[in-house]
């Protein structure tokens, strides 16, 4: 019990004094997961919207695939990216393994289906609400998409944040493709795993606090967005 309290106190000190290692690790975490969220949104949001509006034969298949991809275990994604970028792999020449870029790629694969799926759901609802009006006003295809993306922007932000939240707490994939290299690819989650293993509980706890803080910040934002979302609907 005393250990934990001491750990907590030292962790608080690390956070308050902005310990250099802690800051570096946190910044890399943000960089990787924000990067992945931006790229994942650039792919996932239009894909989700497109799936919501268009009817085509393989639509159900694509949606089922998307849902299946959402449940991909990160470790498996990590392994897949590892094999792809390993020295003898098909993309080995790029030399990306054990770099933040490889970590971003792995996270993009993990979070894009989530972003696309949430966006699809939201835009489909909006499309159902707007359908008659947009048809009656003889909107063009691009006017429809523009209207739905604009009026659904809060829900789309929610989708992006959900992707970011998933990425920032993810450990399996980035551990494999990043390698948790000090001052190079170490992020919050992998560092926590390491410090815990070493018995350095104060650092692990400090990292944990930051991660929890980030998670709470993301969730609060999500909550506020979904409340304004609902508030604007009723």
């Amino acid at each position, binding site marked *: 019990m005393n250990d934990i309290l001491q750990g907590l106190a030292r962790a608080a000190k690390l956070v308050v004094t902005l310990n250099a290692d802690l800051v570096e690790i946190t910044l890399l975490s943000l960089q990787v997961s924000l990067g992945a969220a931006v790229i994942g949104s650039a792919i996932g949001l239009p894909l989700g919207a497109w799936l919501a509006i268009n009817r085509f034969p393989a639509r159900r298949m694509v949606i089922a695939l998307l849902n299946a991809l959402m449940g991909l275990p990160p470790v498996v994604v990590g392994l897949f990216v590892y094999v792809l970028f390993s020295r003898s792999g098909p993309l080995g020449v790029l030399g990306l393994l054990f770099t933040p870029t490889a970590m971003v790629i792995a996270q993009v694969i993990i979070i894009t289906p989530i972003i696309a799926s949430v966006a699809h759901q939201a835009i489909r609802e909006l499309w159902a609400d*707007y359908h*008659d*009006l947009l*048809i009656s*006003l003889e909107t063009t295809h691009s006017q429809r998409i523009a209207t739905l993306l604009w*009026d*659904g922007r809060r829900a789309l932000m929610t989708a992006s944040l959900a992707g970011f939240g998933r990425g920032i707490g993810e450990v399996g994939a980035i551990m494999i493709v990043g390698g948790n290299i000090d001052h190079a690819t170490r992020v919050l989650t992998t560092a926590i795993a390491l410090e815990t293993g070493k018995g350095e509980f104060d650092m692990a706890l400090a990292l944990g606090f930051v991660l929890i803080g980030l998670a709470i910040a993301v969730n609060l934002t999500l909550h506020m967005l979904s409340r304004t979302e609902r508030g*604007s*609907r009723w």
Partner: protein
Amino acid sequence: MVNPMMVLDKVELRRGGRVIVGPISLGLRDAGVTMAMGPNGAGKTTLLRALHGLERVSSGQIRWAESAEALRARQAFVFQTPILMRRSVLDSIAYPLRLKGVSRGEARERAAACAETVGLRVRLKKDASTLSGGEKQKMALARALITEPALLFLDEPSANLDGRSTREIEEILTHIRAGGTRIVMSTHDIGQARRLADEVVFLHDGRLVEQASSAAFFDAPQSNQAYAYLQGDIVI
């Protein structure tokens, strides 16, 4: 001078293996107010939507008169349940103008004027979803009127309105009718039909039971169903 606007030739709409409207054959002329009447489920909404082109016709044909091209090109529809956009009241009303490439500033100016015309006296910056039932209906009417349609469809436009708002909307409709706008609407309010209609299309069970001038219809309905309906009986 009254010309034909459109002709329906054995129009039938089937949904889920069931005929919900039709077969209906009728002609509509290019002026005045046509009122679709009939009990709930008679097919008023479906018929209006089909005329506007929102519903797929299963068999038969809807033919537009060549002389009615102007009407066909400039239609608007006010739905029974107002469709709310996730926008401010002002931007909701301005939306059809924005689609036509009108600048935001001008569209908003005209939207504010249009809100005034329909008697929508609320803070226009507020979210459309915060309007009351009657205000939503007026917002939808303003959104339909802002493009100055030549042919206006309204599906039970005063179903959720109090007496005063109903009067206001009827005044607006009378006014735009006088300005030459062709109106095709439905109502279950017999008084409203008497006040506004030039012609009545009485539906029952998806079929056209009677089409007559307003005067003839209300003086001496030809069908038992219409007679009973006007008496306030439940039509079986």
